[in-house]
């Protein structure tokens, strides 16, 4: 598996994501002006504050040449993982449903928390954001749940931002594009807290859809 990790001006976690990907395969950074993703099998849109989060988190990054290429890769069934700001970018780009709003208490929070995967497994992964409250209209939320598009939820009582239905991460209908607010790339080393994040990368790697 050859991974590409996007790098925008203002990205923060791209080196961490690159390191996480390199534990599972080859990985390189993709500069935001690159239009050609030839040779890349899976893309990570990393965390940070792309373009300073001016206008709205993710609102400018979605127009970058690299994101045009990512949209094509996604349309072709290629696996795409958006983390934190990357999740916001994917929602802004229309590759994922819903939106991320300011945290309910209007504060940034950084804490290690438990995520529940669909199979009930608990993953200890840090979350750190000020705009991570997942929102979609109720009928859309119903549909996401019915379609199995809710990929990760915060464990009961650990929702840090007021996200609807404790949703921490969603996937597109085809299943090859996943976004989540917590940071699996910061959970790949026992010394820094946990290795549970590797599962998130392995899952997206396996989520490519044959066309």
């Amino acid at each position, binding site marked *: 598996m050859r991974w590409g990790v996007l790098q925008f*001006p*203002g*990205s*923060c*976690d791209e*080196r*961490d994501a690159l*390191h996480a990907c390199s534990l599972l395969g080859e990985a390189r950074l993709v500069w935001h002006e690159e239009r050609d993703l030839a040779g890349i099998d899976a893309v990570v849109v990393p965390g*940070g*504050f792309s*373009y*300073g*989060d*001016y206008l709205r988190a993710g609102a400018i990054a979605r127009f970058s040449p690299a994101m045009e290429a990512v949209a094509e890769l996604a349309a072709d069934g290629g696996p795409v993982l958006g983390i934190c700001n990357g999740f916001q970018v994917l929602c802004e780009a229309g590759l994922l449903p819903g939106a991320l709003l300011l945290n309910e*208490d209007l*504060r*940034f*929070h*950084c*804490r290690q928390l438990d995520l529940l995967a669909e199979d009930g497994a608990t993953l200890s992964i*840090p979350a*750190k954001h*000020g705009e991570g409250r997942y929102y979609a209209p109720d009928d859309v939320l119903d549909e996401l749940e019915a379609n199995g598009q809710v990929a990760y939820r915060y464990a009961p009582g650990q929702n840090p931002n007021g996200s609807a239905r404790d949703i921490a991460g969603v996937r597109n209908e085809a299943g090859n594009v996943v976004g989540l607010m917590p*940071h699996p*790339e*910061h959970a*790949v*080393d026992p*010394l*820094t*807290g946990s290795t549970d994040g590797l599962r998130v990368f392995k899952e997206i790697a396996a989520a490519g859809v044959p066309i």
Partner: protein
Amino acid sequence: MTVEVAKHRELGLTDSEFDLIVEKLGREPNDVELAMFSLLWSEHCAYKHSRKLLRRLPTEGERVVMGPGENAGAVDVGNGHAVAFKVESHNHPSAVEPFQGAATGVGGILRDVFALGARPIAILDSLRFGELDSVRSRHLLDGAVRGIGHYGNSIGVATVGGEVYFEGPYEHNCLVNAMCVGLAKTGDMVRAAAAGVGNAVVLMGASTGRDGIGGASVLASAELGDGDDAKRPTVQIGDPFEESKLLECCLELLEKGLLVSLQDLGAAGLTSSAGEMASAGGVGIDLDVAKVPLREADMEPFEIMVSESQERMLGVVEPAKVAEVLALCEKWQTGAAEIGVVTDSGHVRVLRGADVVGDMPVAALVDGCPLYDLEPAEPEGWIYGNRRTLADDASAEETLLALLSSPSVASKRWAFEQYDSVVGSRTVRRPESADAAVLQIPEAGNAIAVSIDGNGRRVACDPYAGTVEAVLECAQNLACVGGEPLGLTNCLNFGNPEKPIPAWQLDRAVNGLAESCEALGVPVVGGNVSLYNEGPEGPIYPTPVVGMVGELPDPASTCGNAFAREGDAIGLIGPFEPNLAGSELAKLRGELDVGLPQPDVPAVAAACATVRDAVRAGKLSSAHDVSDGGLACAIAECAIAGGIGCEVDLQPMRERGCSPVEALFGEGPGGFLLSGEREALDALGAMHVGEVGGTTIEFAAGDRSFTVGLDAVESAWRSLDSNLEPSA
């Protein structure tokens, strides 16, 4: 003529300083020159009341890569890598506008570190506010914490530690000190000295505006005409996105060898950057203000020269490489303009196109400011007042809960959760999980430990002993995670040095800093001085903030502060002689007074070595230094962190001559509270005081005993969360 005299006085220069400038120039300075002199001859730039004292500090050591005088200090961490670090204050801006004041404080210290070619990897903060029941203090705290988070989180540098104290004397003059730690390949580091006559001077980053025209605001008003609308905001506005691009751009420029030298623009903007680069290099610099990219087209030359617009760096570039530098700045979407040239004139010349609008010898501008001797006088007693908040007849249990919920002792989770502490994948020990932050350095195959400390109240009680204690507390914090000190940075926050009492505090504190660093063998590689911190009621507590960086051979062999195992023994080691003088309890009882016992530095150093070796050898379950609130609070903190209780008998402390209250709540340097297997603790010579287990904390001290539930101590210690977020 009279107008000129008024102008220099209003800019903060004395008549004799003005006369000296005239003598050095051989004529009267024009407005541009006067503005530049007034800033470079200010305390902030010239250290005119502190430089003589600072010469006492030990600055040399085997591991020192860069010492004082550079943008930041740096020490060798092995395998061709160095760690650069510095702490700096942004007190006055934060007292005016806490969000931007604190944010730009972080932005400024980051630039100091990447100016050396080091990638910032950690931020720590040391904050002081008035008592938390003051609306103003809550406003300043909230703004400063948001500001630090805003800048550090947005730029992707982990905020890994810090401290916050709440004391009345900071009510009108809060302290916001920020420390940055960076990592560099030693061979790629760059100094700030300009060199190479004919080389280009390139200004990079944000454009220059009228924001932050500080000391020169009087001149600004005079030039712009009368009326309140002419008054410009003097607090700088930060933009972490600009800095993020500038940081990446500068590091790539240095990695490609495209810069001869690099300097950040901080206080006094272009004036100090250009002046200091020329001074350090023994050269001259010509700058053309017409080439500086501006936010407002009609800016006067002096405004351009003194603007403190943020996110700017000044680089010296060989002429053949200018095009490549500009292209790389373009790639990072950061501004860049060739604004000047290195000369052999020994002068800083300010041009506007073909016109020379300022011409000053570097030696006069940068190094010509007279240095003053202090006129210290010891105060006759306690000058800061007392406020009793704890009842006379409070029981030991009530006292413990009152101490744990005292905002200075209580958990600072409310603050540090607003900071990204994990970005960068280095943070092995996060805030409050150990006595010092631990960051892995895979590049060097080891790890560093970082701590920042300074209890102003104890320094107020005895400036010498209190400052020694701040250094020892840092060393003890590092020892608790297995770290050996490599170097120290400091920020001396004091009152007006022209007054006898703050002068005496400063003089005694610098002696304490110098002698403790000498005794511990820790070089002072950099620092900052912030004077004139006073409110209507007088000076702040004298507050030397000490930041220390240490080395650990193996990031996996470190230690936290949480009790870990049922049945572990609890032991105390070190030359700990608890005393109520200057303690948190003395504050709550309204019994603060002058005087502290004198610390035994060699004995504390020996205890640090013992603990450090035990941590590295994996012999301990937890290690925590005994600090604010004494042994009882230290024990409660270890229990809360581990979610497990304990039984403690402090009779051995009583046998050392302590009263029960002293044994429980007395403070002083040198104490380490350890847990682990009994044999391991005995082998270290620890005093056995108890055992880990259960869901309560049971204290006994001779015939007195009390038991308190873990829930009760935790809710007291977590009181800031509910205190600051009443709705939560």
